[in-house]
């Protein structure tokens, strides 16, 4: 099979530029991660300042009322307690729209602007790599990771236009940085042609949708983790215990997170279904059978079943709250397992990936 001879030559200079841009993007993402973390810490501080000011006002009220009557004093104290309850309220509405305090976050604004810059660098790197190799930029582990990371960042930034998801900023930028580092350190691959098994138009459809679905699963995974933390925190507050994680007030309530994660998961699930079907059709064209219980096929099916279970549990079984969050988290862990362990260690027909 002398296909490679017919392929256009690799543009290696452009490939090196692509790697340079990838590194630059990773660095900017790293900075974005730090700024988002600082924003959370600062929000944490300004929230506790607001709280202590509110408490002080109540104290003053208490002192001025103190001379009047004992009964008033008790009432004022109750007022202070009620105010302390309000402290547990969220700064983001359940529709995740910007509220007054949440828009006064200069650090977060800087982080978003920088993240757009990083995404532009990143997009340039991905596109120039594709141009250097004259093919789609998803043919090996390095490219799955770098293109997948780009999609995670891009989807996040696009949703950010409509919804205030800045509370997820440090998670997303951290994840993207990690993926880029993993690509560069774990699977350094110079620009090259596709292995013959992947030289098919199906790679454009099957893999692109698979990567996009995985990016969406990653975002809903982040929301479900936050949902669990928020749920535990709300329970603690309801039990009258101290708020250990005041910065979680920037994060919407557990119910809002759950619903948003569900909506993303439904979209990603349809995409994953398409991925499996397209994969089977490609397998038929390439290997003469739709389904052969190859490890990759098995695990793609496992992922499909877990997310199908998640959707069913929510729709018909009434499994909401932490239980549905756990199902979605297990689903994402399967996605990660399928991508890393199955690709690297399992012998199968999907052992391409330049490993």
């Amino acid at each position, binding site marked *: 099979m002398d296909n490679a001879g017919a392929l256009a030559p690799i543009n290696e200079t452009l490939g090196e530029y692509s790697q340079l841009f990838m590194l630059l993007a990773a660095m900017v993402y790293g900075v974005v991660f730090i700024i988002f973390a600082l924003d959370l810490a600062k929000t944490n501080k300004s929230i506790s300042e607001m709280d202590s000011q509110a408490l002080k006002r109540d104290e003053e009220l208490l002192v001025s009322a103190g001379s009047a009557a004992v009964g008033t004093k008790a009432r004022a104290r109750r007022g202070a307690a009620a105010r302390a309850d309000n402290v547990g309220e969220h700064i983001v509405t359940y529709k995740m729209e910007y509220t007054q305090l949440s828009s006064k976050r200069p650090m977060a604004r800087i982080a978003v602007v920088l993240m757009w810059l990083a995404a532009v660098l990143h997009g340039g790197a991905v596109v120039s790599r594709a141009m250097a190799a004259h093919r789609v930029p998803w043919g090996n582990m390095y490219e799955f990771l770098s293109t997948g990371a780009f999609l995670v960042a891009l989807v996040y930034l696009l949703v950010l236009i409509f919804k205030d998801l800045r509370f997820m900023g440090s998670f997303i930028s951290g994840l993207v940085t990690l993926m880029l580092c993993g690509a560069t350190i774990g699977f350094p691959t110079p620009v090259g042609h596709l292995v013959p098994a992947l030289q098919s138009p199906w790679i454009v459809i099957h893999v692109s949708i698979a990567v996009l679905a995985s990016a969406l699963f990653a975002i809903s995974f982040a929301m479900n983790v936050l949902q669990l933390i928020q749920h535990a925190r709300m329970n603690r507050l309801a039990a009258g215990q101290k708020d250990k994680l005041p910065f979680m007030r920037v994060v919407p309530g557990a119910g809002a997170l759950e619903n948003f994660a569900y909506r993303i998961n*439904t979209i990603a699930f349809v995409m994953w*279904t*398409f991925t499996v*079907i397209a994969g089977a059709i490609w397998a038929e064209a390439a290997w*003469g059978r739709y389904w052969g219980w190859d490890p990759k096929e098995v695990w793609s099916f496992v992922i499909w079943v877990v997310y199908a279970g998640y*959707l069913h549990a929510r*729709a018909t079984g009434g499994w909401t709250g932490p239980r549905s969050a756990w199902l979605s988290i297990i689903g994402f862990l399967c996605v990660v397992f399928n991508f890393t362990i199955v690709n690297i260690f399992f012998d199968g027909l999907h052992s391409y990936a330049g490993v």
Partner: protein
Amino acid sequence: VNHDPGKLPIGISSALALIGLSISLFTPRRRVWVKLKNEDGKRSIEYALLARGEDPRLEREAAELQKIFDKAWPLASQEQNQGAVNG
């Protein structure tokens, strides 16, 4: 290499499966009750909406219904009573 007559049915059925899945996941399920009463020449319309699960667009749907009712039965004096339930 060989002829496989199953290809077309497989293509059609998998496309249908995907379409069906999308419809079942992305169509909001809403129910509406409308009650018309005619008592001593006084006519009243009551209606209620119920969504399955959370549905942030239910209120807009209610406003649309209100418009339709207003067009169908223009009232001299309106006493509005509407409710939208997310459940």
